Structures are given as structure tokens and as C-alpha cells.
């Protein structure tokens, strides 16, 4: 029995390095939810109950919740607030925080790596028009941390990757080690490089740009983050030398469609996800943010939750009208490898719907085809 978080992670890494014959097939809760209004909280509570209840997961524990606040806070898809298009909606975040507090979480830390800044996460939220006090009042002992840099930690946490594909380990903000439970609250979206961005792809943002950003330091992390994670996409450079570099010859592949799915699974293997929640009540099509041409706001009215990110993403893909068994060349992976397939191959979870028990709504009842052209008129 591991006695410390570090030992627990090491044990988890060892286990993951030797995958069982069949990848885990944890159940997924699926629900229709018409809006972010009063029905949201009871819907989420019912979904967590369908997974066995939050209490067994978070009671007495420190929980880190990774949000998806991609892009600049001043960027909108047209006039649409980010929470109704490309960001996790604040009401979903607030509801998850509240339910975790109600289930006995000892401490809840909201984490995200905001674009290009070391500003406090609360300020980033305010910049987007959010009110962070809503989260503080949703449960006891709620904290915020901008994980795009060292933040409140004294040093970066070295997180080894079992059976690595590209990076043998990542140096991350302390919040990703300093938690008993790691939850991710993602958005139901397509992604220009990775095909889809769901619970696993949300971990792309746990890597600090002080080390993995376009303007990171050569030898040591830069004091504050600069730019995006271009090296993850193109392999155009190595992280700061203080962190482990790529395994293969540097720059061996410059194809983002090859690199990004592998790096995402490396990150998920390094920092396992205990609870995945996907907000698909309102979102956008064609990509991960308003900078992707042709995107439009859509309302699939769906929520997903699961204790395994691979099975949760597989059901989410099905709810988007995609085949989770699709590989490179088939929608939505026309130009990239499937993160789900890579995760399944390394034993993190199955993407085979025949093996996944979906609790709550049927996929066919909530399916929203992301590639269906908008109705005219």
C-alpha cells in the first residue's frame, strides 16, 4: 500500500507500464441536460451517484480540478461568452465543486494554465467575466492555482511517464502532485490537431509553458510563461534543460497529428485522471476555440462523467456522432492519430463501446452530430 502520493504515483506508473490484456472498461454516466440552470446540479449529482457516489472518491481528500479555459479570456466565438462555446461553463465548474464539497472533500483546488500569463487564476476568470467568489462559496476550502508556471510551489514536481511515447517525465506545477484526487472538467469539442478534445486532451494544459512554452528558458524554466506549447505540436525545440527532454532524436517527427495525441497520453499516464466530467450542454463545432475558422455555437445538451478518461472519451465521441474505434484517416482523426487508440494500447482504458456500460441516458438518445451541416433558415 503506497504511503505517500509520490509512492502511489510510482506504483500507478509501474502498473500502467504492464497493461493487463484487456484495458479497463469503467462505466460512464451520460445525461441529457437542457441548460446550465436549475436542472444542472441534480443532473450531475445523479450522474455521480450512478458512478457509485463522489464520497468514495473524494471524502477527506484533496482534489485538484483541471478546467478547460483555452485561449485568451478576451476571445469569444462571435459575441458568445466562452462558457457557452469553448470553455468549461462556470455553472458546471461550480456544481462539481459544490458536489465535491458536499461529498466531504477536504480541499478543492481549481487548476488551469491560462494562456500566456502568470496572473492569478482568479484574475483570469474575472477577465473573462466570471466571478470566482461563486466557486469559493460553493464548497469549503476552495483554492485556485495558475499552473502555467511555478505558482505557489517551491519547485516543479517531476512526474514520470510509464511506457513513454515521447516524454519520459514531465515537470509540472506542484498542484498535480499535491492532490489525492485529480479530476478534469472538460468541454465536448473537436480539435484541429487532435481530432477531439475531451477529458484526456484537457491534460495538454497541465504542462507549464515556463518549461514547455515557446518562450521557455533554455536551461531553467522562465520566470513567467510566454506563448503556447509549440514544441508539443512541432517538436521545434526541447523543453528547458532542467526537465527531461524527448526520448527519440529531438525533432524526429514534426507532425502535430502524430505528436499531440502521443504527448496527451504521456501526460495522462503521468498524471492519472480519477474523475472525468465533460460539459456538452453548449459548445462549438469545428475545433477547440474561436480561432478555428468556421466554428459555430451548438447545444448538444449533454453531460458525461466517468472514472476512466478513455471510456468517458469513447462515450463522448459516440455522443458527438463519431466512432470511437476510428483510427487515423477516419473522422474526426482525418489528419491525426487517435488519442483514444493510443491510450487503449497502453492499457489506460478501452474505447470499445461494447465493453463500456453507459449508465443513465442511451447514446442514441443524446447523440448530436458535430459534422452535420447547420439547418438553413
Amino acid at each position, binding site marked *: 500500500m503506497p504511503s505517500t502520493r509520490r509512492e502511489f504515483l510510482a506504483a500507478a506508473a509501474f502498473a500502467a507500464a504492464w497493461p493487463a490484456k484487456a484495458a479497463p472498461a469503467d462505466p460512464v454516466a451520460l445525461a441529457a441536460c437542457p441548460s446550465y440552470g436549475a436542472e444542472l446540479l441534480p443532473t450531475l449529482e445523479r450522474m455521480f451517484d450512478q458512478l457509485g457516489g463522489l464520497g468514495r472518491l473524494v471524502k477527506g481528500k484533496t482534489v485538484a480540478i483541471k478546467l478547460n479555459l483555452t485561449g485568451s479570456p478576451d476571445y469569444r466565438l*462571435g*459575441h458568445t461568452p466562452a462558457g457557452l462555446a469553448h470553455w468549461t461553463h462556470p455553472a458546471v465548474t461550480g456544481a462539481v465543486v459544490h458536489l465535491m464539497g458536499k461529498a466531504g472533500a477536504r480541499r478543492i483546488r481549481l487548476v488551469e494554465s491560462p494562456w500566456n500569463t502568470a496572473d492569478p487564476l482568479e484574475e483570469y476568470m474575472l477577465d473573462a*467575466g466570471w466571478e470566482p467568489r461563486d466557486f469559493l462559496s460553493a464548497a469549503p476550502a476552495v483554492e485556485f492555482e495558475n499552473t502555467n508556471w511555478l505558482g505557489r510551489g517551491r519547485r516543479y514536481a517531476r512526474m514520470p511517464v510509464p511506457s513513454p511515447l515521447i516524454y519520459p517525465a514531465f515537470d509540472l506545477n506542484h498542484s498535480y502532485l499535491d492532490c489525492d484526487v485529480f479530476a478534469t472538467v472538460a468541454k465536448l469539442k473537436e480539435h484541429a490537431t487532435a481530432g477531439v478534445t475531451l477529458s484526456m486532451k484537457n491534460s495538454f494544459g497541465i504542462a507549464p509553458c515556463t518549461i514547455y512554452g515557446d518562450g521557455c528558458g533554455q536551461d531553467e524554466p522562465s520566470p513567467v510563461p510566454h506563448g503556447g506549447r509549440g514544441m508539443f505540436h512541432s517538436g521545434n525545440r526541447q523543453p528547458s534543460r532542467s526537465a527531461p527532454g524527448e526520448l527519440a532524436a529531438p525533432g524526429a517527427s514534426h507532425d502535430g497529428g502524430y505528436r499531440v495525441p502521443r504527448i496527451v497520453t504521456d501526460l495522462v499516464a503521468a498524471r492519472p485522471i480519477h474523475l472525468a466530467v465533460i460539459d456538452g450542454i453548449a459548445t462549438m463545432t469545428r475545433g477547440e476555440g474561436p480561432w478555428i475558422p468556421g466554428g459555430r455555437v451548438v447545444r448538444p445538451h449533454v453531460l458525461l462523467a466517468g472514472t476512466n478518461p478513455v471510456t468517458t472519451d469513447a462515450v463522448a465521441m459516440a455522443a458527438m456522432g463519431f466512432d470511437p474505434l476510428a483510427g487515423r484517416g477516419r473522422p474526426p482523426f482525418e489528419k491525426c492519430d487517435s488519442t483514444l487508440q493510443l491510450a487503449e494500447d497502453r492499457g489506460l482504458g478501452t474505447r470499445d463501446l461494447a465493453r463500456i456500460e453507459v449508465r443513465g441516458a442511451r447514446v442514441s438518445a443524446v447523440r448530436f452530430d458535430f459534422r452535420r451541416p447547420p439547418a438553413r433558415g
Partner: protein
Amino acid sequence: MGAQNEWVPARWRAGLDPARLRSGPVNCLVVDWPATGEDTVRRLRAAGFAVVGDLGSAPGTPHAAEGTRATGLDALMGAPGSAGDSLVPAAPVSSLPRTGPWQIAVVREGVWPGVRAGAHGASDAGPTGAPWIDSNGWAARLARALAPGKTIWLDFAPPAGAAPSPDNWLLALCDAQAHGARWILPAAALDTPAWAVLSAALAFFQAHRGWPSEAVSSVGTISAFSGAGEFLAQEFLNLSARRQLPVRILPADRAISALWDGLETLVYPDQAPPPPALLARMLATVEAGALLVAPPALAPLLHGRDAGEPPCPGYRMLAIGKGRAAVALQPWDDPFLLAADVQNLAGRRNAPVRLWNPGATMVFPTGETPARTRLVHLVKYASRGGDPLTLGLTGRYRAAALYTPGAAPVRLAPQAVRRGVEFPLPRFGVYGAVLLEG
């Protein structure tokens, strides 16, 4: 010829037909002096224009000033110095005299507004990664603060060899007007296709010259804006605007008697301590609940108990009365980081305005009082297009209207949001003003 503060200036060039200007709002012509002959001055005055002689960079002399009336000039402008009180001072903003009987002060050495282009035509990026914007806004507002009650003119021209588009010309005008200044239209503007656009815009701004012009903000900066701290203090004004952080300007020599109503954050960027009376007022404001952002040099003068972790690194927080002081641990050398720190230390919760999808658009809230926004200027420094803008305001407003040069006002309906209201804006050109109701 009207009062000086009603003059709408343009530069005269030999060969221009004054009749072409007479139908528009320009009512004052600036001529090179003494190169322009007295006959021309008489002809321009006879055509109904006020005429101002520009001595250029040469300092005015008592003799030249004395000759103003004799030659028929309505005023003479030049480098401040020895010409006496009758000279309209014209100098870079930090060299302008701060008192005098003159009604107009001219800020020289302005930039040509716009997004700075890089070597291959791409936009240069600023420290944010956002496009680097050249604007005279900060200089115009600083000049107004240094010389309150005076009319501020900006004197700048397109870069040599440039052929500005009508939108470029319009931007240069709107950048000045939005910040409460008038631009001395270069002679080149008067015989380009842009003239009709500029003339309409000038008429628009003249028609709305009663609009409020006080900056709305709870953040104020106190500085001498000269000497060793000049660059930091001035660039702080420039770059805070990029961050949608409006700042009230309090020149140190006037701050003691200025209105401080609604100020919740005082920024003191200078290394030299303020005079004792000013320091006493600053400390009294802090004790009443405000935040002081201070350089390390002020640490020995600030006495309070430790107030815990700062919201951003690099500061020691002190509790002083009901307020706090954030004392920098190292002297500031980067005005952009200072602006970022101030935004984090002060917090964005009560920021008066927020603009989404700004791109290269800057937002400047004004009001009759510094506590309540009534009019928001929006200036687009890049060419038209881009994503649609949404304007957010802290507080509640019943309605609003978008005013743009050459078009009828468009009514805007507010959308209530968590921390105020938002107005989705229709597309517009270089400039728009949102006038708020309620």
C-alpha cells in the same frame, strides 16, 4: 475668429485653396513662420480663418511674439522658453510648461497611430504577444492632466514616404479626439481622397464636443512624469491602456489639490519620495481603505503589519489602517510588467469596462465623474474586419447607443450578466462611441 479653444486646426501649404476648407469644420490654419508671408496671412484671415504662426523648433523670442499682432497672426506657437506668455507652447509632452495664460498647448513628436508592421509586413508583437499599437492617447491625456483646462493639440504627420489610406488618416484623427485632443491636420490630408472622410469626422466630433472626457477608473497614478522616472511613468500610461486598465493621471505637483474621489488604488512609480504633504494624503487614503502600489524606495516611509501573500510575486504586502500597501521588492524596470502587476494587485472585479475580441481595438471609458462610465470610446488601430466586439460594463445600464462618424446612432440593448451588463456591438469602422443611459 472665435475663442482659441474653439479652433479646429489644419496646416497650411502654399497652393491650397482656402475655399476648399471653408465649408468644413476647420477654422484655424497653422502656417510656417516667418516663412509664410504676411500677404498670405491676410488672405487666410480674410477668408475667415484664424492663423497661427509656427516657429518650428526655434525658440520664440520676445521680438517674434511682439510681432504677432503687427503681422496679423492670431497666435504664435513654438518651443517654450523665452517668448513670454503670449506664445502657444509646442514641445514634447514632458517639456510642456504646466502653467501660463495660453489656452492651447501643442504636443510635438507624436507617433503615427496604428499597428506597427514588422520587416515583412506582419504585425510586430508587443510583450503580450498582441499586436504592438502606436497611439498618442497617453500623451494627449497626460498633457491634459499637466495643463488642466487647456486645449491640447497634437502635431504629427505620416511617416516620410507613406501613403496613408483614408482609414489611416481617420485613425490618426480619432486617436487624438478620443483622448480629448485635436490633431493639427497635415496639409497633405487636405488634398487627398481622405479629406471628405476627415471633414465628416471633424464635424462629428465638433457636434459632440460636450461629451464627457474624464477618465473613469478607480486606479490613479501619481508621478512627476519627468526626470529619472519619466520613461517608466509615461510608458505605464501607454501600456496600461493596452491591458484595458484605465488610469487616472495625477501629476505630483497637482495631486495634493486634485479630486481623489473613487480612487481605490494609487500607483506611485517614481523612485523619489513624494513631498511630505502629498505623502500624508496618500497615506490617509490608504488608511481609509485604498491600496498603494509603491517602489522599494518608499518602504522606509510605510509602516504597517505584514498582510500575507501578494496576489502576484515581487511584492511585500503591508496592512495600513483599513488599506494595504504593495511594496515592490525590486525597482521596476519594465512598464508592461508594472501595468500587469497593478492589474493583479488592484484586481479586475471593479474594472469599469471590458472589451471582448479587442484585437487591436482600444477602449477608453469616460464620464462626468470618475466613478461612473457614461461614454466609452472605441478606436480600432488595425484595418477593418476581425471578430465582433462585445462591450462589458461593471454596473447596471438601461440602454446605450453606438455613435460613429457619418452614420446614425444605433440603439443597443443591454444583456445582464454576472458582474454588470454587456452590449454586443454591431460592426463599425475605425471609431465608435457608446453612450450609456441609466
